[in-house]
């Protein structure tokens, strides 16, 4: 586990130096920050919970037990698990290749794999439709065969894999870059194969990073809206994710139904965020 401490070394230093310098009283700037954050972040979040419980706990639970809401939550969770798992594998592999091998075109490839962070999600949805949809570049050939990935759970998964791809990569790659190759070289010298080295030396050092990356991916997938709304077809009990359910119910004026699911999503993301903080903040 000793290698886990390395990425956090800088955090430790920062903490140390802050303590050494005498500070002016923090209360004025802190108070100002809270005044700014109150309407920007804290009050909107509070509103979701206040509205959710406005009709009482019974109404809140009844709104959650609507079959559509149950399906939407379950479907979102399943997609999030699948996305986290698949991007966990592909992201770790991508990070390993990009960190351990030097090859021409490495920089452009590095940029491409991080691109989804910058692309608007609605553009991702459009581009998937224009590739896989019935009038798309590939979909045109698949459609006559009866293959239609868009507007199915598979299409939603494709969108989520695209949108969340960089999160795994960006947590693992820095760890790999910092992980000293001497450990791996030592493993080779005692006759370990490349695979054995990865499995017994590299991977254990990445465990915390993989967990963090998977949680980040999971959280983003759970809340994904922009790409999903285009590729899912928004069918209740089929392809309607929790964020789409919230949007549809809000549009239809069923604020209570929308809010109950919104409160659950918010609570889930708080829990995930809490674990992220635990693992990255004092992960030693």
């Amino acid at each position, binding site marked *: *586990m000793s290698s886990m401490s390395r990425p956090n070394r800088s955090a430790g230093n920062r903490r140390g130096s802050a303590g050494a310098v005498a500070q002016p009283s923090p209360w004025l700037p802190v108070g100002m920050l809270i005044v700014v954050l109150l309407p920007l972040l804290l009050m909107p979040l509070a509103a979701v919970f206040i509205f959710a419980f406005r009709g009482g706990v019974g109404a809140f639970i009844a709104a959650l037990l609507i079959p559509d809401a149950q*399906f939407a*939550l*379950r*479907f979102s*969770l*399943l997609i999030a*698990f699948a996305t986290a798992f698949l991007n966990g594998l592909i992201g770790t592999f991508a990070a390993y290749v990009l960190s351990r091998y030097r090859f021409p075109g490495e920089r452009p490839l590095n940029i491409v794999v991080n691109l989804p962070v910058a692309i608007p999600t609605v553009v991702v949805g459009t581009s998937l*439709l224009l590739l896989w*949809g*019935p*009038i798309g570049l590939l*979909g045109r050939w698949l*459609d006559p065969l009866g293959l*239609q990935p*868009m*507007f199915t759970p598979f299409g939603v998964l494709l969108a989520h894999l695209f949108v969340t791809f960089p999160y795994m990569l960006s947590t693992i790659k820095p760890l790999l870059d910092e992980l000293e190759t001497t450990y791996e070289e030592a493993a080779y010298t005692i006759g370990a194969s490349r695979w054995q080295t990865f499995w017994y030396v590299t991977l254990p050092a990445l465990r915390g990073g993989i967990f963090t990356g998977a949680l980040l991916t999971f959280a983003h997938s759970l809340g994904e809206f922009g790409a999903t709304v285009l590729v899912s*077809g*928004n*069918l*209740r*009990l*089929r392809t*309607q994710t929790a964020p789409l359910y919230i949007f*549809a119910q809000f*549009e*239809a*004026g069923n604020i209570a139904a929308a809010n109950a699911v919104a409160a659950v999503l918010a609570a*889930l993301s708080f*829990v995930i965020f809490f*674990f992220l903080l*635990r693992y990255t903040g004092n992960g030693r």
Partner: protein
Amino acid sequence: MKYVTLAPYLRNVIPLTLLSTLALYALWPWLPFTREAIAPRTIVFYGFSILGSVMEQAIFPAFQAQWYAQTGEQVEFISSFAGSGTITNQIVMGVPAELALLSLELDALRLSEAGVIDAESWHDLPERGVVNRTPFVILVRPGNPKAIHDFADLTRPGIGVVHPDPLTSGGANWAIVAEYGAGARADPDRPEAGYDLLLGIWRNVVAQAASARSARTQFENGFGDALITYEQEALYDQARGRLQAEIIYPQRTILSEHTLVVIERHTALAQRELIAAFVQFLWSEPAQRLFVEYGYRSVYEELNRANPQFGAIHDPFMIDDFGGWPQAKRDIVEGIWKDRVLQELEQ
């Protein structure tokens, strides 16, 4: 690995337990021992936005009960409700809709132009595909402080009108023909009467929303003095004691007609009988009565007496009075509203 202390052990156990609980919850309906033995039959139905409540609360359950009584089979409805233009675009892009109820025939025409359905295939359905109707009315603030009694009052200076945007909203297209038609029919001898009323109302438009539904939200949030919208939406809220406005019935207004299309290439052969039964059900008396109960006007005039909320309209008219939607779109929405009214307002 050295020795296991309790704290780090717990640190892994808590998130892992939570995650597995979540996974179990998510997978629950699909686990082998929780699955229903017989998968129910399904109908994939897309509808324009205001239809959501009547379909989900009344029409679907009634048909499920009828089909179960007849065949012993469970039917499940897989549905999606959004703006008429939005669902039309989704169907063109390939969503697996078997049936779609659109807010105006123009969207059905777009589907046939895209090759999704046969041209005018909906005309072979009962009532040429029209499932129900609702007139366009004016909503004003409680007590009607600005004394608005007809479309003509909306042209007075100082009145703010909230209107959906005809580029994206089906309801807005209906509203424009309602406004133009009300003017033209009030003064049939003067050719510019329709244009004048339309221009007068549009001088006072203070907010344009993407859909009829969002225009209503803007109005409810305090924008403007009047909103032009579907009667059904207002009646639905009135029946539930939620209407924070008064309904004003214009002397002359249009009845919007909502068109059903069957997307045959998405219906498997085994589905044909079920789909046909549901289509027939929509025009059956029990279904039409349900529409009336939810504030839609039935295609069978005699059923409309059952809802005392329906207001009287002196001179109701239909899109066919303007030669049908293709002609009305070209002549009124494009030719008059877009090319003349908007041009005039820009100057």
